[in-house]
């Protein structure tokens, strides 16, 4: 297993991240392992850290004596009880969590914010909708959630039918 673990070390790494909507370039030392003292750089700013992975997803990071308890949670990291979301632009990235179309113009998707069951579909393909108009109602744990159109436009697709069980992030309606 020692080998297996060691194999986790990788060649010189530059990681492009988006943290709090801001693009950052993080350089980690070559032959890096996420343990021990290492010289890093963020957008060229040098940062000396000492990192130790206690168990997968739980890391102690020392920066000039300051200790940060860091826990990985999907596409975010929890430090001191606060969650910081991030995106990685990297082959080995945690990306692809984001649904399609977020933040863009053109077609906009209405996605399920939580797993649940579809109890009402309020629009059909071709309908004109206002921004904020309810399009689908889903229910979980006895609570109903009316999902609204993100923009004014035409419904180009309805991907949900009453009774469907949907997962968080599923695209239910697309508005063009």
């Amino acid at each position: 297993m020692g080998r297996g673990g060691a194999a986790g070390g990788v060649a010189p790494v530059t990681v492009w991240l988006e943290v709090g909507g801001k693009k950052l370039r993080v350089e980690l030392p070559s032959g890096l392992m996420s343990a021990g003292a290492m010289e890093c750089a963020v957008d060229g700013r040098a940062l000396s850290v000492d990192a130790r992975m206690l168990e997968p997803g739980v890391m102690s990071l020392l920066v000039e004596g300051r200790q940060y308890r860091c826990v990985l949670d999907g596409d975010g990291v929890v430090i001191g009880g606060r969650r910081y979301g991030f995106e990685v632009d990297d082959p080995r990235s945690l990306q692809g969590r984001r649904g399609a179309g977020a933040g863009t113009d053109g077609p906009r998707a209405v996605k399920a914010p939580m797993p649940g069951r579809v109890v009402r579909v309020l629009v059909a393909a071709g309908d004109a909708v206002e921004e904020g108009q309810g399009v689908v109602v889903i229910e979980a744990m006895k609570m109903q959630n009316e999902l609204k159109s993100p923009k004014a436009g035409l419904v180009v697709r309805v991907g949900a039918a009453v009774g469907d069980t949907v997962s968080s992030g599923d695209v239910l309606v697309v508005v063009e």
Partner: protein
Amino acid sequence: MLIANRGEIALRVIRACKEMGIATVAVYSDADRGALHVLHADEAYRVGPAPASESYLRGDLILEIARRVGADAVHPGYGFLSENAEFAEACAAMGVTFIGPPASAMRVLGSKTRARQAADAAGMPRVPGSVTGLADVAEALRVAAGIGYPVMLKAAAGGGGKGMRAVTKAEELAGAFAAASSEAERSFGSGEVYLEKLIERPRHIEIQLMADEHGHCVYLGERECSVQRRHQKVIEEAPSAVVSEDLRRRMGEAAVRLALSAGYVNAGTVEFLVDAEQNFYFLEMNTRLQVEHPVTEMVTGLDLVHLQLRVAMGEPLPLTQEDVRLRGHAIECRIYAEDPDNNFFPSPGLITRLVRPGGPGIREDCAVFAGWTVPLDYDPMLSKLVAFAPTREMAIDRMLRALDEYVIGGIKTNIGLFRRILTDADFRAARIDTGYLERMLAAGPAVVEESVPEDVVAVVAALFAVTARRETAVAPDVAAESRWAEAGRREGLRL
């Protein structure tokens, strides 16, 4: 002992039974085969599909299991069948002990309107309003005019805020009456509503009772549950910061009178509204163990489930009112799978990581684990986190410390909300009422917490990213494991 429930309360009852040397039988729906209450039981039987209406609410199926395995008692926990008088009667008819009050007492005190009549008979102060259900809008208008606006419409069979409407003037009454009635119909199968005066900024304070079959009943102090959202309790504490020894005694003795008048046995809770002048008004009685019973256990040093089982066996209460001594302060946070950034809508799903708080004074009643998929089908409560300390301030600070340690990965939770409440000046000064939380939430975004330098976050994220392959070898594997087991269950174990 058969436990007719699921989740943390089923596990909590199972543990109490083990401590008393009582063999335990769990029942489970298809969503719960892999649940902790099953893992900790001596025996376990499937009762039905995931929806509660086809499983945990099927008293007939559950009693059939009890008969088959020869269980001589059933503990209903809270919710589900716990306040169902028919189920209690069916148990009795089968010679199975129902861990709770007799059906007769449940009938009297379980219905809000009948309970209010009993309260009047017991000379208990209550909010002015209609004692019985209202026949129609006309009667509603008459009663409202009599007591004066604002008034509150409530479902007679209700609870948890369903079928409730505040009405500030007569013009609104008709619409509110229809809405409340139909919501009550949908929620409880009975559209009966009643009406009472709306108390301004009331505190919700309740008295815990425990009664035996020999006519002894004690009150175990109060709990304050004023921090609510949509009439759902969010934080409970004991004792209340505003209840004096004298007020406690008067509320407690009134509650005991009511219980004895109805021949009440076992654990029960009498809920009151308390106004700014420390007047208390009877609200309703819950004829079961409450979700928030742990805070009472922490400050009394008692175990309410042990007491439930002993009185159910016919034992006299092992303590008198004089033996009940409150010490220290306990606070409970109800941690829910819900998304604070999305209007607190439920966020069920797979828990990919769970880092629990610990240390002195921290108690957690919880039945989730890393790899557990929180089902869609039930209440989204994940955990009851309780902090005990010598004083209220220390208990608050201890809870904040524990919340900082707590990480639940994979689903959204309301942990951040508690950090916000517990650091709020009004809460810390105990300036709270049942409208406090909604006002605080309406007041706008959370105060910005002390933040970690952006560069540090970036390096941490990068380090996790490059170890992600190892990472995926673990947490997601737990996911795979359980999804796969899930699949196995559905597909009859063949690939």
